[in-house]
């Protein structure tokens, strides 16, 4: 598969994206398999975007939005959270157990949290792979 092992990270340009930049500037290393797609708000991320990423073979999709209660557009991050949950359910519905969709709330000045999210998602994937 084309994207096997890839983590697609949809990053809100107000939070996840600058956090990822900071991680880079601090040379905090994280798994190379992460591909960031910049969005104006986590609320822009549609179910179909996440599903297409899985279709293309992504092992995980992470949506990074602002902390709950601090979305610049009030509800964008909570909507994203629900969509991510729905996508994860849809994967399970069709018997896909080894891939996952994850929501991460983050602030623009939290590079360590970004790295943790990347590392932990990789770890989840490893655990899922070993589960059977």
């Amino acid at each position, binding site marked *: 598969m084309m994207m096997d092992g890839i983590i697609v990270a949809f990053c809100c340009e*107000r*939070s996840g994206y*600058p956090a990822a*930049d*900071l991680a880079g*500037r*601090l040379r905090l290393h994280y798994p190379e398999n992460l591909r960031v797609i910049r969005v104006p708000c986590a609320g822009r991320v549609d179910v179909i975007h996440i599903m297409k990423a899985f279709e293309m073979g992504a092992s995980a999709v992470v949506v990074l939005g*602002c*902390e*709950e*209660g*601090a979305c610049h557009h009030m509800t964008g991050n909570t909507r994203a959270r629900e969509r991510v949950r729905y996508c994860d359910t849809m994967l399970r519905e069709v018997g896909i157990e080894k891939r996952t969709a994850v929501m991460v*709330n983050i*602030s*623009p*000045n*939290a*590079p*360590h*949290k970004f*790295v*943790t999210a990347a590392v932990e998602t990789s770890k989840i994937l490893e655990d899922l792979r070993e589960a059977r």
Partner: protein
Amino acid sequence: MKAESRSVLVIGAGISGISSALELASAGFGVHLLERDAVIGGHAASFPCKATNICAECSACVVSDKLREAVQHPRIRLLTGSTLKEFRGEPGDFRVRIAQEPRYVDGERCIACGLCTDICPTDPKAICLPQADAVPLIHVLDEKLCLRSKGKECELCRDICPTKAIEFNRKRREEELSVGAVVVATGFEVFDAKKKGSLGYGRYPGVLTGLDLEHLLRREGVLRFPGGDKEPARIAFIQCVGSRDEGHPYCSHVCCKYAMKLAALIRHRSPDTLVTIFYIDLQTAGKGFARFFDEYKSDIRFVRGVPVEIMQAASGELEVKFEDISQGRVRRDTFDLVVLSVGISPRTDSWDLARILGLDMADDGFFDTAPSIGSNDTSVSGIFLAGTCQGPKDIPDSVAHGAAAASRVMELLGVPVQAGG
């Protein structure tokens, strides 16, 4: 109208100065934003996000947003490494002389590639990015660490710089500006906890200030025991260190909230940690805080009364001596980490600026306000105060106060209202 009266000098590029500058710039004024440091943001830019699973409303992210906005605004001219030397004239037509310290790294040319830091032979590095999210994003040369200050002929960084941004023989330069009004936003100093000797700050590694803890969390992302890998299991916060005492007849507004937010964050990350807060009066009022307090108050042990002495036991544990009010006797409790919630103090160099500008100082050491609308006006017409140089404020209050100062400038200089549709 004269061109100079359409421009404003903002002294201090902390959060309230930036807030003033942004508001003035968007209303059409040209802004000279003066900052003593090489980068902007002041204290507010050094705090970590304190969100647990909900936003703690610490406003750290608001600061990041505003900093970026400020450097990208076409009407804001940033003068870093600069201080005010002279001031004369009258409202609408002030003349100010600015001195800019030599900047060995040209901010216009530095692309933050990091090659200079990599090659710099000193430890710690003399040339580096002051913060990963420094605004502007430029490397800064610390003269004191540089080998050249020790008489050595090192030119490694200058030679490797791909954009030729580094130049050693730059001179300090001065320039005179004409401005219509001045906003003073020089901020505060954190209370020096060493002045309370009995609390052991600076002597015991396990005693930190709230600011140290903030910086630690910002830098490391996690809380580690100072000097070790272990996470502290028992943490005490001691409130009103440098507030509400003889030298500081005011409440610092921020310490109760930051202590509780840090406590909640610590408990959120390591739920087994025991957190105690010693306090006089808990300051829990303010929009958005009641919700947060309700969520976390049961996680924290609150003890009324402020300890006066901390001793370090042989084991390294810290013994805090406090008066147990409910039992009317002195008790001792041991902790792994003690955080002193240091308050906001007036800047000691405020006096210099006050002399140049002719401002009055209040007896608590902050700039004095003139009786008028709000608390932005000074005894000198055309000079306004913004933020914590006027008195303690949290970030949202500082942003508001900065915007408020802008309104006074607009009222003084007038904003031409363009006929709209």
